[in-house]
């Protein structure tokens, strides 16, 4: 079972966002970085599938800055076998990212490509389906269950409270929803082993994205809070205000 997992280095989800001096990015002063949480679930699932199959390998791929080597090494420490780093210091839109990923994995042999459903910075949920389009592969996004049997993936995803169970011919691109796998913490042995695992680096394939991010701003501040007494009368006045003042009931 040969699996490629696409990951992204993102700012920690606990970050308090401030807008940068260019007005089109966030201020990165003092922020912590993590592997995007859904990408980490994809890495974990790939390792589990390889181990269940008893053969194969897991290759993690990222398009991102030189510093993203740290996130690749973390994935290697979790148990991935090798890493591919397409380097760029620029923010790429989803289309440009998908094409850079395609260029980075072209010529490699794989049965399955896993991505997180979305990176927690851009929140587009687009790179997985766009990569599938570029590679002309079948795609199922937002997968919370996955097993592999006889060259097919059996996947589950939830829509409107129902679970759809789909059978997918491999190779395919699947994107991870929460519930797919609980990422492990790399142990010391894994961290030591990761230092010796292969990590190939090349400049990311260029290309402009047809969507331009012109500016970034903080959302408008919310108004002052009205305090409601925790009594039956308080509840009644709350409901009246929600209906008459806010018109949401």
């Amino acid at each position, binding site marked *: 079972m040969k699996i490629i997992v696409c990951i992204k280095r993102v700012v920690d989800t606990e970050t308090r*966002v401030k807008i940068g001096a260019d007005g089109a990015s966030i201020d990165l002063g003092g922020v912590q970085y993590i592997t995007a949480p859904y990408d980490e679930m994809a890495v974990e699932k790939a390792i589990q599938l390889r181990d269940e199959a008893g053969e194969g390998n897991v290759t993690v791929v990222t398009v991102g800055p030189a510093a993203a080597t740290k996130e690749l090494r973390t994935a290697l420490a979790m148990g991935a076998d090798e890493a591919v780093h397409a380097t760029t210091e620029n923010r790429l839109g989803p289309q440009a990212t998908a094409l850079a990923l395609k260029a980075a994995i072209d010529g490699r042999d794989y049965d399955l490509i896993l991505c997180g459903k979305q990176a927690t910075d851009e*929140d587009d*949920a687009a790179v997985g389906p766009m990569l599938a389009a570029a590679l002309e592969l079948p795609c199922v996004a937002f997968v919370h269950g996955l097993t592999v049997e006889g060259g097919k993936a059996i996947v589950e995803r939830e829509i409107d409270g129902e679970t759809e169970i789909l059978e997918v011919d491999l190779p395919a691109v699947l994107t991870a929803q929460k519930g797919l796998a609980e990422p492990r913490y790399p142990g010391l042995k894994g961290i030591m082993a990761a230092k010796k695992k292969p990590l190939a680096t090349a400049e990311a394939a260029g290309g402009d994205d047809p969507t331009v991010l012109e500016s970034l701003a903080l959302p408008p501040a919310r108004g002052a809070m009205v305090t409601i007494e925790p009594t039956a009368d308080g509840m009644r006045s709350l409901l009246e205000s929600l209906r008459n003042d806010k018109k949401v009931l």
Partner: protein
Amino acid sequence: MSDVLLFLETAHGEAGATLKKPAAEVATAGRALADALGGRLVALITGDVPADGILGLHGVDHVLTVSGDGYGRHMLAPQAAALEAAVASVRPRAVLLAASVLGKELGAYVAGRLGWSLMSDVISVALDGDRLTATKPKYAGKALARLAAAGPAIVSLRPNAVPPAENARDATSEALVVAASDARVRLREVVAAGEKKLELTEADTIVSGGRGLGAPENWGLITDLAHALGAAHGASRAVVDAGWRPHAEQVGQTGKTVSPKLYIACGISGAIQHLAGMSSSKVIVAVNKDAEAPIFKVADYGIVGDVHDVLPLLTAAAGTFLTS
């Protein structure tokens, strides 16, 4: 290249096909854009067409229908083939669809196939000169980006972002024939989780619970209030990680980003990643026994009190108030 094409999702119940709730919102945004472009608003419906019709509703000028098996569920390949056929027929400047599970996947996939601009999960879309622009929450809503595209674009619209408007008009209809699509993904089974639920992201009202409930057996306090208000119910990450509630109910940066008209946070302290997922709600009510809880910083109405005492009072008041 001045028409706007809509992809409208349908739901299937005992009464036959009906448009899903966000369809009217997508059509309303599409109508405004078509007017700005001086073009037509064309809607694509795949599978069964709603019996009450969408002809003329919400400003649609022309309806394309694609019939056949395989469109009833959320399978990407047949829906993508239908959308690409409609794009080839209409040659629109923009395609609008809901930022649902299918809409996000389909929008990204077809934008990738066509090399078009993608504006995913936006809260508004407009024409600025000859460029399309959109406002898009990033970092789960901690920041808002302004996106622009000079060429054609596929735009997925976040549910509850645009209030739907009625706009009846005479519309025409046409059947579109689509070649059989790629069958590399096949539906095996659909497992219903009890009653069919409204997607959390599409609900008008959400009641969410957190650690303050104390134990999973107290969850009835949340569902009772949700029932009284006709609301969907959600959960904080702490509660999901503790195994009290399923992942599908999690609201926050690593769960679902929601923007209902009314969000009631019960026993949720307001970790930054939770606030990111719900602070674009129109009105926020918070119940928490800690007056210093960060949730009160984003709340429009705050009730300082124990959820075990407050929620039964609110549920009882809602029961009498909403029937009066």
